[in-house]
C-alpha cells in the first residue's frame, strides 16, 4: 500500500513537471508578451515614463532572457533576479495586467471556484442518481420517458443561455439579482455571517446552471449502467434470497454501477472549470474562469500559467483520489489478479 502510494506520488510529480513545461511553452508560443505589447502601445502614445517602468519590469522578471531560462526561473529551479523564487518556493509570480501579485489576483477566486464547482458536482449526483435509478427500474414507463425527455433538453440547452434567461426572469419576478457570488455591498468585506448567507443564496443559480448539462449526461449514463447490472445473475440471486427489491437494488447492482463514475472524478473537476467559463462570464462570477480567459488574451504569462497549473494539479489529485476510492470500493481492484 505504502509502496503503491509512493510510486503514485512520484509519477504525479513527473506528470506535473511535464505539464508545467507544456503549459509554459504553449503560452509563450504566440510572438511577444504582455509587457512588450504594452511598451509598443505606450511608445505610440508617447508615454515615456510608463514605458520606462515597463522596461524595468521586463528586466525585473527576466522577460528578455530566452524562454527556457524564463521557464526554469518560473519553476524555481534557477535563480532569477530575486534569487530562487518560483512555483516551488510558493511564489506564483506577478500579474502584469492587474499590476498585482498573482496570489492576490486569484486569491478568493480560487476557493470560490472550488466551492461553485463542488456545489455543481454535488448537485449533479444528488439529482441524477435518484432519477437514473427511477428510470432504470421502470424502463420504458411514462416516468422514464419524461426523465429522458427532460434529460435531452438539459443536454441540448447551452448553459450560458439558461444563465441569461434565469438572470432576467429571476430579477424581473423576484427582484433577485443573481450576478456575482455575493451582494455588491459585501465586496472586500471580511467574511461575516450575512456575507456567507448572501454567498449561499447566490450559489443556487450558478450551481443549477453549471450542473444541469452534467446532470442530464449523468442520468443517461447511470441509467444505461444500471440497466446492464439489473440483468446480471447476482441480482436475481439477491432477489431469490428474499431480500426486498429496494435493498437488493441498492446493495448490489447500484454499487456495481458506481465504478465508472468514481473513475471519472479526476476528469470531472477540470471539465467543470473549463466548461463553466461562459456561465461565469454571463453571471459575472468571480471564479478563475474569466480571469484565465483575459489572462490568455492579454498574454499575461504568469497569471495564465498559474491558473493552468492549478487545474492540472486538481486533475492529477482527482485521479489519485478516484483510484484510491476505487480500490477501497472494489475488492477486485484492491486484490487484483484473478477474476
Amino acid at each position, binding site marked *: 500500500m505504502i509502496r503503491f502510494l509512493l510510486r503514485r506520488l512520484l509519477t504525479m510529480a513527473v506528470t506535473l513537471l511535464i505539464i508545467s513545461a507544456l503549459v509554459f511553452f504553449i503560452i509563450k508560443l504566440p510572438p511577444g508578451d504582455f509587457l512588450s505589447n504594452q511598451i509598443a502601445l505606450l511608445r505610440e502614445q508617447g508615454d515615456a515614463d510608463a514605458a520606462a517602468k515597463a522596461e524595468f519590469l521586463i528586466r525585473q522578471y527576466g522577460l528578455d532572457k530566452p524562454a527556457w531560462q524564463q521557464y526554469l526561473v518560473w519553476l524555481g529551479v534557477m535563480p532569477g533576479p530575486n534569487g530562487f523564487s518560483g512555483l516551488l518556493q510558493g511564489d506564483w509570480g506577478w500579474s502584469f495586467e492587474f499590476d498585482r501579485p498573482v496570489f492576490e489576483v486569484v486569491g478568493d477566486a480560487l476557493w470560490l471556484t472550488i466551492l461553485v464547482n463542488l456545489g455543481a458536482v454535488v448537485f449533479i449526483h444528488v439529482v441524477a442518481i435518484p432519477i437514473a435509478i427511477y428510470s432504470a427500474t421502470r424502463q420504458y414507463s411514462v416516468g422514464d420517458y419524461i426523465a429522458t425527455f427532460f434529460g435531452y433538453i438539459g443536454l441540448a440547452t447551452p448553459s450560458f443561455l439558461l444563465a441569461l434567461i434565469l438572470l432576467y426572469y429571476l430579477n424581473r419576478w423576484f427582484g433577485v439579482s443573481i450576478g456575482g457570488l455575493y451582494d455588491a455591498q459585501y465586496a472586500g468585506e471580511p467574511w461575516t455571517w450575512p456575507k456567507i448567507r448572501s454567498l449561499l443564496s447566490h450559489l443556487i443559480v450558478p450551481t443549477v446552471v453549471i450542473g444541469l448539462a452534467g446532470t442530464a449526461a449523468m442520468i443517461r449514463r447511470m441509467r444505461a449502467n444500471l440497466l446492464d447490472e439489473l440483468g446480471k445473475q447476482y441480482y436475481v440471486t439477491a432477489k*431469490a434470497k428474499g431480500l426486498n427489491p429496494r435493498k437488493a437494488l441498492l446493495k448490489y447492482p447500484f454499487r456495481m454501477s458506481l465504478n465508472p463514475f468514481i473513475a471519472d472524478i479526476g476528469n470531472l473537476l477540470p471539465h467543470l472549470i473549463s466548461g463553466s467559463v461562459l456561465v461565469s462570464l454571463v453571471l459575472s462570477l468571480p471564479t478563475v474562469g474569466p480571469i484565465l480567459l483575459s489572462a490568455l488574451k492579454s498574454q499575461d504569462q504568469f497569471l495564465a500559467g498559474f491558473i493552468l497549473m492549478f487545474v492540472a494539479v486538481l486533475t492529477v489529485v482527482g485521479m489519485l483520489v478516484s483510484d484510491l476510492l476505487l480500490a477501497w470500493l472494489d475488492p477486485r481492484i484492491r486484490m487484483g489478479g484473478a477474476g
Partner: protein
Amino acid sequence: MEAPLLSIRQLTVDFNTDTGDFRAVDGLTFEIPKGKTVALVGESGSGKSVTAQAILQILPKKAHIAGGSIHFNDPAQNPAVDIAGLGAESSAMHALRGGRIAMIFQEPMTSLSPLHTIGDQISEALLIHADVSPAEARARTVEVLARVGFPDPKRALTTYPFELSGGLRQRAMIAMALITRPALLIADEPTTALDVTTQAQILDLIRELQAETGMSVLLITHDLGVVANVADEVIVMYRGRVMEAGSREEIFRKAEHPYLKALMRAVPRFAMEEDERLTPIREVKSATLARAHSPERVQPAGPILKAENLTKCFTLRSGWFSGKTRTIHAVNGVSLALPTGKTLGLVGESGCGKTTVSKIIMRATRPDTGRVLFDDGTGPKDVHDLQGNALTAYRHSVQFIFQDPFSSLNPRMTVYEILTEPLRIHNIGSSDERYHRAKQLLDMVGLDQRSMRRYPHSFSGGQRQRLGIARALALEPRVLLCDEPVSALDVSVQAQVLNLLKDLQSALGLSYLFVSHNLAVVDYIADTIAVMCRGYIVEEAPKSSLFRNPVHPYTQALLAAVPDPDIDRPLDFAKLRTGRFSDPAAWPEPFRLRHGEAGIMKEIEPGHRVRLGGQQAREAA
C-alpha cells in the same frame, strides 16, 4: 400417501414481447414429493428455468403467470399456500423466497456479487429470514460453510468470490441456499459450468445434504447423465409441456415418447460402437458435402502438425498494492503429434493449459521453449520462425473454431461479410468468386443460401457455430483448431455440429486438434486422445486403448467422474469424494511428480504412453 411438498397444476406462463405474445410454459402439471429429487429435463427454451422462476415468483418483467396453481405444502406452516395467487412482492412471498424455497444457479461466478464477501452474502440470507443477531448469523455461516466443505470456514467469511475456484463458489451458493433450512431447493443447472470431477463432488454434496435435512430438490438440467445418477423422478419438457414423466427406472428403461428417445440418442456415450453415429434431434442435410472432395495437395510424410517440448510460464501480479508476483507453469514440456486427416483430442479440466497450447500453435503466443512444426508437404518448419509468404501460407492452412458462437461473430457484419472476410484479407478472388465461395460454404455446413444478407443475431446457437465453421473453411485450411466447439451448445445441436465436423473431415481431408473438457465428446470425435493436467500431458493413447485401459490415476478419476446416462453404471461417489486428482504431488507412486519434476513418458502398449514420476525415471536410468 403423504401430500406432495409442491404440486403444480396447469401452470401457464406468458411472455409479452414486441413481436407478440409467447407461451413459455403451457399447462404444466407435476408434483414434487417430500424428500425426493425431481429432475426437469429438456433442451434450452423448453421452459425449465421459467418454471423455476415461476415457483419463486422471480419471473422477468415481461413474463407473468397466466393461469394454473402452485400449491406449496410446507410442513412447517399449514395450510398449503398457492404461490401463483401471491403477489410477487407480498410479504408472504418474501418469506417463502430464500426462506422456505431456495435456489442455486448455473454460473457460480456471476451469481455472487464480486463486491461483497462470501460471509456477508451468506449471512444476509439468514438475517432476512430469521430473527438472529449478526454474531449468531456469523456463527451459523461458519457452521454451514464447514458443512459444505470449505477447508477454512472462518477465513472464508472474509474472502471474495473471485478468490475462490468454481467448485468452492458453487459450494458457497449452496451454503447460502441452505442456511435457512429450506423445504425445497431448486437447482438450475448447478454443475453445468463445472469440471467433471467437481461436478461429481457437488452432486454428492447435494445428495448428502438432502439426506440430512429431508428437503426436496428440483433439479433442472439438460444432462441425462446427471439425471440418471441423482434423480428419483424425471419430467421431460419440450416447448413448455411435459412430454414424459415417471420414476427414473421407468424413464431410462422404458422411454416411450419419441422426443425422449431422440434426446437420448443425441448424447455421446462411452459405450458407443466404433462406427455408431449420433442422431441429432433435428437432422441437417448438407447439399454439396457428398460431392465435395479434398483439394489436390502434396501430403506430408510425417504428422502435419507437431509440438515438441512446449513450455510456457505466466507471471501474475497478486494485486495493486503489493509488488509480489507469482509464476505459473501453464505448459510443461508438452509434445503432441497430429497425423494428417486425423483428430487429436486434448482433454483436461479448466486451467490445465490446453487453451495455452492451442494458442501457441496458432502463433497467438510464443512458447518459452520448444517449437511447433508444421509440414505442408515440403518438410517440417518451425511455425514461430515463419515470415512473409510462408507465414501467410501457414495462416491459410491453420484455422480456428471458437467456443462461444455468440461472441465470436461480429454482430454488425452480415453472413456474407463474415464468410468472405478471410478471402478479402488474403486478397483471394474477385467479388463474384467470393460470392460463389460463400454460397458453397453455406451449403457445406447445411445452412440456407438465402441467409447471406442476414446478421448473426437471427441465428440460433448451433447455426452460429456452423457459421463459425464455414468461416474457418473459407481458406481451404488443412488443420482446424477446435477449442471447446460444442461446450456452449445445447445437447440437441451438439450432435449436429459433431456430425458435421466428422463429415467435413472425411470429405475434405482435414486434420483436427480438438480441445475439450468433455470426455464423451472427445471419445466420439477423436482418434488419439491426450489427457492434460497442470500443464503436463499425463497420458496419451488411441481412444480405444485409453478408454479400455486407462492407466494414469488422473485419467481414471476423469473417466469415473463423467455421469453416464445409464442407470446401470452409476457414479462411484465414495471414490470421487477423496478428491485431489489434479495435484501431481498427491498421485500414488509410480506416478507422483514432486514439485518441479517433469517425469518421463513411458510407452506401455503401442501408441499408449503414460507419464511416470521422477522416482521411476531415476530407477530406469
